[in-house]
């Protein structure tokens, strides 16, 4: 019997909590909210507590937060059109840079696997790539305007310098660096409405997406010369939708996250539920099959906005909601 058991609830934010992010070591959880603050949660004497509140970084809703791969920096994206970089030294967070350039709400920010690049996206339809210099300077390296609408999310491949974005224009786009500039090399269409979130699996050859059409889609990478005979162009891979999970969610799906260890997919949905899907044992690469293994119907009192697996403890999950709370969950098998 597979189920999720609630461990604890964090209260403290005064408005909707939009995002939760575990530090790379798994010891700290950061959360951000419509109350314009970031909270850092951690364990003290076996008890989870709010260790610090970052209040002076943004003037509007903080939509998304992301840790650098080394765990020393936190980036926050806000509706105030900026991204703030926070440096953690001796447990104290200090804002060291503000990335300005987007015309309006910044929706997401993420670090590349090496930590040397940052990607941001905005309602202004653009995706920006920033280079991190050795003396903690952040310089814009490229602005890509491939989407025709609001860009909802950007995320990096787990070990290559390949970037993916998804949008209100219903598409997902993939980018790579080409002759010193960044270009879009593939556009994935299949969703019928806004794509809220995309997430690579550990190998980077699979991408999961979710959106307003209440479906989850799994995309498979096919490299040039693949044995399946899927046509590719030049040196670029192509991505094909190989699985659609529909009929499970009753409202928009706002977040999806692969478990690095178990491969389980967890979703955050506007129907207040958290769902976990596991790949079937007779699943195949070209026609994967996923089964719903558990649903927590009233995981939160309102929309669940984000879910995040702990990077070190594969049975530990964090979620956050419009109900202003954050919850920790444990998988019981």
């Amino acid at each position, binding site marked *: 019997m597979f189920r999720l058991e609630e461990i604890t609830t964090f209260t403290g934010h005064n408005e909707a909590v939009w995002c939760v992010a575990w530090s790379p070591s798994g010891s700290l959880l950061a959360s951000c909210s419509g109350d314009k603050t970031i909270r850092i949660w951690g364990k003290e004497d076996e008890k989870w507590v709010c260790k610090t509140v970052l209040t002076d970084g943004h003037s*509007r*809703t903080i939509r998304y937060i992301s840790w650098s791969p080394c765990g020393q920096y936190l980036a926050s994206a806000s*509706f105030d059109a900026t991204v703030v970089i926070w440096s953690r030294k001796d447990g104290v967070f200090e804002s060291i840079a503000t990335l300005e350039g987007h015309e309006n*709400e910044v929706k997401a920010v993420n670090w590349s696997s090496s930590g040397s690049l940052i990607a941001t996206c905005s*309602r202004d339809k653009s995706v920006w790539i920033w280079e991190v210099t050795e003396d903690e300077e952040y310089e814009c390296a490229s602005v890509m305007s491939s989407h025709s609408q609001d860009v909802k999310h950007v995320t990096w491949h787990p070990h290559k310098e390949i970037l993916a974005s998804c949008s209100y224009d219903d598409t997902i786009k993939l980018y790579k660096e080409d002759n010193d500039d960044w270009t879009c090399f593939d556009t994935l269409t299949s969703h019928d409405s806004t794509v809220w979130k995309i997430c690579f699996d550990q190998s980077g050859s699979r991408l999961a997406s979710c959106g307003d059409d209440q479906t989850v889609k799994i995309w498979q990478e096919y490299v040039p010369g693949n044995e399946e005979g899927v046509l590719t162009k030049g040196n670029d891979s192509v991505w094909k939708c190989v699985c659609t999970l529909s009929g499970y969610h009753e409202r928009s799906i706002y977040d999806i996250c692969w478990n690095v260890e178990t491969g389980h997919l967890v979703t955050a949905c*506007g*129907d*207040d539920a958290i769902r976990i899907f596991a790949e079937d044992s007779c699943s195949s690469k070209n026609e994967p099959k996923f089964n719903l293994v558990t649903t927590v*119907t009233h995981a939160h009192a309102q*929309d669940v906005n984000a879910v995040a697996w702990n990077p070190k403890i594969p049975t530990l999950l964090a979620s956050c909601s419009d109900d202003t709370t954050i919850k920790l969950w444990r998988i019981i098998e």
Partner: protein
Amino acid sequence: MSFFSDILRDVKDPEKPETLEELNVLSEESITVSRLTGDQLLIHVEFTPTVPHCSLASLIGLTIRSKLQECLPEKAKVDIKIKKGTHTTADEINKQINDKERIAAAMENPNLRALVKECTTDIDDTYY
């Protein structure tokens, strides 16, 4: 309770002195109520803009949502749509007024918030 007569009846039009009911933008028939599997209330509102190119349709949508969220007795899911065939860019506006991120950002805009407040404040309240 009737969500229409108890909550939405007195919502005003953003640019005219009349209420949305008086302008036939909303009526009792505009509201459909159901429940999700988890028993959460789902309110579906379908409104008719006064003219097919009405530039304030998205503001009307925001106003209806704001009023419902403020006055509903329990937390509910709300879908707001323009009645089919009554607006030239209905699909575009429907997408915008049901996108929670766009709604949250719009409600942080002081000018928009003031406009919404003006349309949703009961006439009686303004004297106190």
